[in-house]
């Protein structure tokens, strides 16, 4: 049967904040854009972001994009690229105003301006007093933003392919990207979408870990597609564990709780963050707070019968503030921990949350790869959001910078695609199409074998045990070998469901392949980096080593090869922030 084909000027894969903010740039233009999403757009994981989006609006106290930039560079443990960071922090201000104009129901101050709350790692005047930079819609900011962006795309009549799963990128012999093979989940029919430009906006890969704040859909599809197209992934060893997941479950409790005045206590009722971060206390950077919680528990000061968590106290804020500013987490606490946060403290423990690394891009969203002694653009390929690594987060992301990243760089990618549209489509490469079709048809195989479920469970546990928080040479090298062995076992996996109609078993098999590719990138990069920086913490190399390791790592699927490239320390217009010891 002939393969169905569609042609668009641009193809955006993923309909979270990055994909939708890229797509909405095409409103009122003649360019034709398709958005492919494996779920209905408002189900994308941007919807779960709680606390807010950073922008130096100075609505509550003095602020400045330059201070925001300093905090982000410091937060990144000096691994972030300072040109991209400057761009993001400057763009933050018009970006938030644009969101507001697009209908986002931000909470308000008495003077009618957007409400801003304090978040971790924020300071005034380059490391001075706490700043309040996070623009919030109660504790449902991601939901409010995602729905508004979807609404603007409905208004713009964006062409959506809802519940289509992207299988692989199509490329020609020169390495240019020509579009993607996708699968209509409802019918099980493949579809080839040709595009002059393809934007990967598929989000993170948090499902590589067993305990995670990430949704079922966060399986690193775009990152894995890039890997299979020969693109390396950058800085994959930097995985953020959010300090406050609901203990034992992993659902997120926003940093906004601490921003509003909540704090952490151990079994002695001690406000222990005062010991780890005398100035910022509970609003130190996430890597710092997560490590402090793990240390408290390891040293026997954890709470509960098993001493395996700490408590997040916020009842002193009063029911009125909690109901007004934090209604969503009050609801989550009741449902998942059986605790009313307005009365009792919440049991919390760090949970896998966010990948700082991803597909390497420049600040226009163009995917860039090493070439000779420099770099070159992959023609026709863009990436934005958590899937990408434009390197604004470096080794550790600040709370409130994730929504900002997806919006600023989603928009930048959309605009760059529009302004640089080729006149014609490049000729289709049938070999590449056949290859993509084979990775789909592989799941038609029948007979005995392993199940997706068995292998996935084993893989996620291995990732947690060997590439999670505790990272020594021994644990990690064993982990990399184990994960490689599991990857081999993928060949033995056979599905029992061969129906075409809405076959989620087949989707989960394709997702597991993607998770494995991302997982091995993460573990191999972590093993390679022999220092501690930001979220990457090694007891055997406890210090940051700028002389040898102030560089980005690159993982290639072919041969599981690791390479490196320099950090961009030169900003666009201001002076560079040289690395300093990082204290909060």
């Amino acid at each position, binding site marked *: 049967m002939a393969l169905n084909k569609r042609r668009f000027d641009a193809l955006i894969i993923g309909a979270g904040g990055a994909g939708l903010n890229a797509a909405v740039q095409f409103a009122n233009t003649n360019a034709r854009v398709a958005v492919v999403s494996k779920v209905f757009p408002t189900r994308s994981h941007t919807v779960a972001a709680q606390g807010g989006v950073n922008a130096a609006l100075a609505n509550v106290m003095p602020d400045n994009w330059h201070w925001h930039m300093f905090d982000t560079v410091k937060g990144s443990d000096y691994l972030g690229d300072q040109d991209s960071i400057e761009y993001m922090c400057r763009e933050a201000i018009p970006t*938030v105003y644009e969101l*507001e*104009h697009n209908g986002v129901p931000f*909470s308000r101050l008495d003077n009618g301006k957007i409400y801003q709350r304090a978040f971790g790692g924020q300071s005034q005047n380059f490391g001075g007093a706490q700043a309040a930079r996070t623009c919030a819609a109660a504790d449902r900011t991601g939901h409010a933003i995602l729905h508004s962006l979807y609404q603007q795309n409905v208004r713009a009549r964006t062409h959506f392919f809802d519940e289509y799963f992207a299988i692989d990128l199509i490329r020609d012999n020169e390495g240019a990207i020509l579009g993607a093979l996708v699968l209509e989940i409802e019918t099980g029919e493949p579809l080839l979408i040709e595009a002059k430009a393809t934007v990967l906006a598929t989000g993170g890969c948090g499902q590589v870990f067993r305990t995670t704040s990430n949704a079922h859909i966060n399986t690193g599809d775009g990152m894995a597609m890039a890997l299979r197209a020969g693109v390396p992934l950058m800085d994959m060893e930097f995985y953020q564990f959010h300090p406050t997941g609901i203990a034992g479950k992993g659902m997120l409790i926003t940093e906004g709780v601490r921003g509003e005045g909540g704090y952490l206590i151990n079994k002695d009722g001690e406000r222990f963050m005062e010991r780890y971060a005398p100035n910022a206390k509970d609003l130190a950077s996430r890597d710092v707070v997560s490590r402090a919680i793990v240390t408290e528990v390891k040293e026997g000061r954890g709470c509960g019968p098993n001493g395996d968590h700490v408590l997040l106290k916020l009842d002193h804020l009063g029911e009125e503030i909690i109901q007004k500013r934090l209604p969503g987490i009050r609801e989550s606490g009741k449902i998942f921990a059986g605790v009313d946060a307005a009365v009792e403290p919440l049991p919390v423990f760090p949970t896998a949350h966010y990948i700082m690394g991803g597909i390497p891009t420049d600040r226009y969203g163009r995917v860039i790869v090493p070439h000779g002694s420099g770099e070159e653009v992959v023609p026709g390929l863009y990436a934005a959001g958590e899937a990408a690594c434009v390197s604004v987060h470096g080794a550790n992301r600040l709370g409130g910078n994730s929504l900002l990243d997806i919006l600023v760089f989603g928009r930048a990618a959309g605009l760059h695609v529009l302004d640089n549209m080729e006149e014609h489509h490049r000729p289709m490469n049938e070999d590449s199409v056949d290859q993509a079709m084979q990775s789909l048809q592989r799941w038609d195989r029948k007979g005995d074998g392993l199940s997706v479920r068995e292998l996935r469970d084993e893989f996620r546990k291995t990732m947690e045990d060997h590439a999670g928080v505790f990272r020594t040479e021994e644990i990690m090298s064993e982990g990399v070998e184990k994960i490689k062995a599991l990857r081999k076992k993928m060949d033995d996996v056979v599905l029992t469901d061969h129906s*075409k109609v809405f076959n989620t078993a087949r989707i989960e098999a394709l997702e597991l392949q993607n998770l494995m590719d991302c997982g091995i990138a993460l573990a191999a990069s972590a093993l390679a980096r022999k220092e501690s920086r930001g979220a990457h913490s090694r007891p055997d190399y406890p210090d940051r080593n700028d002389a040898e390791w102030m560089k980005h790592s690159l993982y290639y699927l072919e041969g599981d090869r690791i390479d490196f490239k320099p950090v961009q320390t030169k900003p666009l217009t201001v002076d560079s922030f040289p690395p300093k010891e990082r204290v909060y």
Partner: protein
Amino acid sequence: MKFRISRYNPDVDSEPYMQEFDIEVSRGMMLRDALLEVKRQDETFNFRHSCGEGVCGSDGVNVNGTNKLACITAIADLKEPVEVRPFPGRPIIRDLVVDMSQFYQQYKAVDPWLVREDPMPEQEILQSPEDRDKLDGLYECIMCGCCSTSCPSFWWNPEKFHGPQALLSAWRFLADSRDQATDERLDKLEGPYKLFRCHTIMNCVEVCPKGLNPTQAIGNIKNLMLKKAI
């Protein structure tokens, strides 16, 4: 614990049937966890789900006769045997997966976006906290579809009656002090079906997993129309 789950695969089944599963339940287990357990036992079983915390709106199902979000429905609160069916009144695609396209079309039909005629200011459009409070209970909708698919008026006229979800969205923009399309929005809701098919049966209010009140929103739209007519 006994679960009876509605199964249907158009490739082999002429109509849906109920299949029984024995699921070992643990403390704090949610219905979504139980459905994932079913999928572990039988990978041919299909349902939509994603965030697991009640914000993405993917996993609405009919449980013991009531529409609920599986991920925030505690097993402990359910009567055994737990009967799980797809949303009523929607075409079944497979197992618990239904075709929601009409539901989405009705949402799109109310122009669910902020309309502003004035030139945009350089900064934010100002809004007082009191005006912003008017959006509470409206903007939180997750479009899970529990309400509209439990509404008899929507069952009968899904192509003509907007249904509670879309009407809640219509009111969300009418209630927004920044919006400048009140007259157009109200005009678009005229006629015997789009809005006025609501017979205040209030199933929507009863089932909304986010505790929202579409019936009240519909009442507010009617009042505003009346005010405008006078």
